[in-house]
């Protein structure tokens, strides 16, 4: 009986840790994938050259949910920037959640 309870408790813990919905991103998981973002968003003063010349927006401190919504919009095609669309289309929902968690945590 005790063993069953122990196993049950363990299962709940594992489930809670690994079964979190994709909407709960992990900033830690994002760190392995940042290379695709850093080239533009990690360089202070960097400017995109196409279709218009302007600064690549700062992400540090932005709302996590807003970043996730923006990436989803690029993925769906609701937002038009070609480079962002190409990048977002290659992302899974988990990737998007992870990036949102990472940049949202950069206070």
């Amino acid at each position: 009986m005790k063993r069953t309870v122990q196993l049950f408790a363990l299962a709940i813990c594992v489930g809670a840790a690994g079964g979190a919905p994709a909407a709960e991103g992990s900033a830690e998981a994002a760190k392995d994938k940042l290379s695709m973002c850093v080239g533009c968003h990690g360089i202070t003063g960097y400017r995109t050259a196409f279709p218009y010349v302007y600064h690549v927006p700062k992400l540090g401190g932005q709302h996590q949910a807003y970043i996730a919504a923006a990436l989803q919009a690029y993925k769906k095609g609701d937002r038009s920037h070609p480079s962002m669309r190409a990048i977002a289309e290659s992302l899974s929902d988990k990737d998007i959640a992870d990036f949102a968690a990472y940049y949202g945590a950069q206070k």
Partner: protein
Amino acid sequence: MKGRLSVCLLAALTTAQAQAGDVARGKESSAACAACHGPDGNSQAPDFPKIAGQYEDYLYRTLLDYKSGKRKNAIMQAQVANLSKEALADLSAYFAGLPGLHNTKR
């Protein structure tokens, strides 16, 4: 010839400066923005992005895209529909100068 050249230069200079917004004018007209984006541009609601400290030219480009419909958002389009490009430039200059968003090292 000299007169025409001067006029051309003057026109070029003033046209270029029309894009650089006036912070004071932007502050005066920013009350409507505070409702969603917060009084200091640091919104509390995740639906509305923080705009304080964002690059001025990015903000300006975004506002122009809302105005033209290139970027679709019913709320923002309504907000900027009656604002001139100069007003958008002023607002961009104002919010860009507020403390808030920052670059990330990575």
